[in-house]
């Protein structure tokens, strides 16, 4: 009964979303409709939340008469995995997606009340239209509420890979980011429709883009961390099509939040910024299509259903094609002379955008190349592996780091040459340390790691110097930027060092055996049988001569008759020790792989700092002031510099 109520609430939500689309656009020109749009946004959230709550209830009570529950849950699951199993498959995760869009829509309807009605109404209308499309897709070909006649007594269980803390937090964070870009998208569409693309528009859009970007950053970092400890390969990024699907909107979003800075402060890059706002969400949609249509094979892919793929493709064509056509018709097309010279901050941000978009284009082409190749050659296959990606992406990331290191000394419009004096000295010091530190501590020459450490230090030095110079007049947005940039530097150092200085050894070990790796001795002490809530495991205890204990496990899940390896990890700020079990050989010994991974946590720590910086910037006083005023005097300079 509760499931039927949830189903009904979701159908109701579709109606409300469609209503919001109509009322939202009407309220842009008719003042008295504005109140109704806000009410509808709240009603939509309530309705989708009720539907989602009903699904959670079905999972919590293990209602196996619901097909989706049967496919993804089991009575032996602990309660928190029962709940997170609700987004363990396509249908439920898509309901979560619509719930988040409803939540963003509601937040915009509340926080954006002071935005002029001609924009606000169109933003809500666009968001309503998008969610109507999603809900129609959900209810027509992906309903999680479908009943089974005579349901089984036991469910087929959640994939053991997903029985993990990562599954609880990674998808919601990721979706908040994906869907959050819908707000920037809606602002772009609204501004184009209302022909109000100015610096004020950038100031409204910026906080939303920042928050969505921060969620996506955390979501990707969590996914990378999860893959690292759960998949048992010790890797943290695989250039898998679905990882790329989350990384492309992130790159577009990163370019967007930087381009928005130029549009807000200088009124420049307007067409480019609005394009990026459309692109970020379009790439989120493209990602959803890739993951949910089965068009590319991936460890992440959901079950394939051609109907779903075609619907999603049609939706992508309407939403993205519509927005880009609108862009072609309405984006400002005035070619103006550039209002910045030499190494101005505008130029720095232009370089930032060029590098990010270039990286994005390469990843997009590489991801889709196998598809295009197959289409052109009528069925022949090819694939592009991680070395191709790394060859292009690593130099681009290092170039981005170099631009970022110079950025703090630059000024808007024009940078006095005198300001560049010190950064050369800093570069020399940073590069010297970058060569020395890996050489002394790692004992090897590794160009990639040396450049990463050197550039990371350079970024830190120039930012800290600028921070000290400005400490009397700090704004939160400036502080957020510094923290995010230091986070980027930390990630770069982490990636460089862990890629080049990780060690691994494979061994066959029985109880009492020891193996030495990189001057640390690992001893296999004992093996014990452990009973989990829904699995049994062999747990092996290792200790090192440095006094660290690790407990890798081999788990057997009877519900799906699946065996999982659980890595034994000793995490550390300066590096992880990481052990995975292979098979147990007939003589009772174990195949063991021992890794040490220096600075691997810096990869994610840096990402978390980036996200924190992004959120901190949003709390800046000027965005709070914004919400108390009807409008702001535009600081836009006349005309617009050519971007391309």
């Amino acid at each position, binding site marked *: 009964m509760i499931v039927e109520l949830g189903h009904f609430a979701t159908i109701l939500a579709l109606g409300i979303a469609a209503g919001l689309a109509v009322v939202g656009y009407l309220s842009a020109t008719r003042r008295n409709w504005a109140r109704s749009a806000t009410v509808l946004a709240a009603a939509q959230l309530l309705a989708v939340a009720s539907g989602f709550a009903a699904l959670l209830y079905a999972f919590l009570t293990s209602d196996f008469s619901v097909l989706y529950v049967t496919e993804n849950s089991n009575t032996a699951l602990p309660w928190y995995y029962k709940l997170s199993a609700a987004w363990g498959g396509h249908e439920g995760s898509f309901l979560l997606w619509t719930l988040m869009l409803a939540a963003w829509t509601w937040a915009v309807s509340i926080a954006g009340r002071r935005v002029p009605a001609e924009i606000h109404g169109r933003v809500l209308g666009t968001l309503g239209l998008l969610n109507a499309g999603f809900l129609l897709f959900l209810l027509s070909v992906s309903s999680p509420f479908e009943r089974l006649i005579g349901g089984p007594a036991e469910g087929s269980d959640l994939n053991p890979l997903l029985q993990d803390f990562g599954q609880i937090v990674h998808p919601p964070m990721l979706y908040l980011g994906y869907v959050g870009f819908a707000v920037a998208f809606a602002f772009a569409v609204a501004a184009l429709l209302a022909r109000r693309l100015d610096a004020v528009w950038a100031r409204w859009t910026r906080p939303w883009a920042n928050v969505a970007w921060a969620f996506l950053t955390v979501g990707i970092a969590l996914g990378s961390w999860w893959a690292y400890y759960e998949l048992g390969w010790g890797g943290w990024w695989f250039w898998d099509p679905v990882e790329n699907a989350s990384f492309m909107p992130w790159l577009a979003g990163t370019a967007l939040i930087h381009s928005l800075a130029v549009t807000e402060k200088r009124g420049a890059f307007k067409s480019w910024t609005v394009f990026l706002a459309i692109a970020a969400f379009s790439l989120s949609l493209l990602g959803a299509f890739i993951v949910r249509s089965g068009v590319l094979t991936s460890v992440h892919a959901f079950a394939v259903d051609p109907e779903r793929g075609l619907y999603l493709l049609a939706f992508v064509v309407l939403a993205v094609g519509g927005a880009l056509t609108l862009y072609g018709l309405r984006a400002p097309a005035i070619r103006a002379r550039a209002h910045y010279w030499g190494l101005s901050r505008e130029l720095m941000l232009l370089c930032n955008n060029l590098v990010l978009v270039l990286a994005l284009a390469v990843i997009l082409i590489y991801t889709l190349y196998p598809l295009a190749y197959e289409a052109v050659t009528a*069925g022949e296959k090819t694939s592009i592996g991680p070395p191709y990606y790394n060859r292009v992406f690593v130099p681009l990331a290092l170039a981005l780091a170099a631009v970022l290191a110079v950025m703090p000394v630059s000024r808007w419009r024009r940078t006095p040459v005198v300001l560049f004096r010190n950064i050369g000295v800093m570069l020399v010091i940073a590069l010297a340390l970058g060569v020395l530190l890996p050489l002394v501590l790692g004992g090897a020459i590794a160009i990639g790691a040396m450049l990463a450490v050197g550039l990371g230090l350079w970024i830190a030095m120039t930012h800290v110097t600028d921070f000290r110079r400005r400490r009397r007049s700090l704004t939160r947005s400036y502080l957020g930027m510094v923290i995010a940039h230091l986070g980027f530097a930390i990630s770069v150092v982490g990636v460089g060092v862990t890629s080049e200085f990780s060690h691994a050894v494979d061994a066959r070990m029985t109880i009492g055996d020891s193996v030495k790796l990189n001057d640390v001795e690992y001893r296999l002490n004992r093996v014990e049988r452990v009973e989990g809530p829904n699995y049994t495991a062999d747990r092996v205890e290792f200790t090192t001569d440095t006094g660290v204990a690790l407990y890798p496990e081999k788990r057997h899940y009877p519900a799906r008759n699946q065996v999982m390896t659980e890595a034994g990890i000793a995490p550390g700020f300066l590096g992880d020790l990481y052990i995975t079990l292979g098979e147990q050989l007939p003589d009772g010994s174990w195949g063991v792989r021992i890794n040490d991974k220096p600075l691997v946590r810096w990869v994610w720590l840096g990402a978390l700092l980036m996200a924190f910086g992004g959120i901190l910037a949003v709390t800046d006083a000027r965005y709070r002031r914004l919400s108390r005023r009807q409008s702001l005097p535009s600081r836009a300079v006349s005309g617009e510099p050519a971007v391309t």
Partner: protein
Amino acid sequence: MNRAKLFVPATLFGVLVIVLYLGFTLRDPTLLPSALLDKPFPGFDLPVLAGAPGERATRDRLLGETRLVNVWATWCPTCLAEHGELMRIRAETGLSIVGISYKDDSRKARQWLAHYGDPYDFNVVDLDGDLGVDLGVYGAPETFLVDAEGIIRFKHVGDVNPGVWRDEFEPRIAALKGKDEVAENRL
């Protein structure tokens, strides 16, 4: 900037949609023209999973009898689903099955076979997926029917279940076996 330039994104997007649409419709395995049908199985020289140290296998090891060549991996849930059927086929019909451990961790693959049973005569390790590319593998699992001369006679994408076995494989194998016997009698 003139107006036409602003339509560049929309145009590029149009191209992208065409690629996606073609990719999406082409990847339907029933529409996929298998260029390899009735062609010799591609040559290979790959390590043998859990073989003697340094042992490798080439295309020659496929010759001599009708076999199934099954592309599988431990990361592929559908492969686990079809595993029981492969075990049954091997046990009940004695048909030779050769495995291609596709883009997989060999330790995991060995452990999988130790755990779930081993229906394969032998497995070759296609770590980089090169043989997979030659075979036009879309994704695991895929199963090829290869005759005694090493010619690919049929390809099935997706799991081999009792229905697929009965409707697709059994009649074709019966026909091939008949041909083999005729050939032997002539000699």
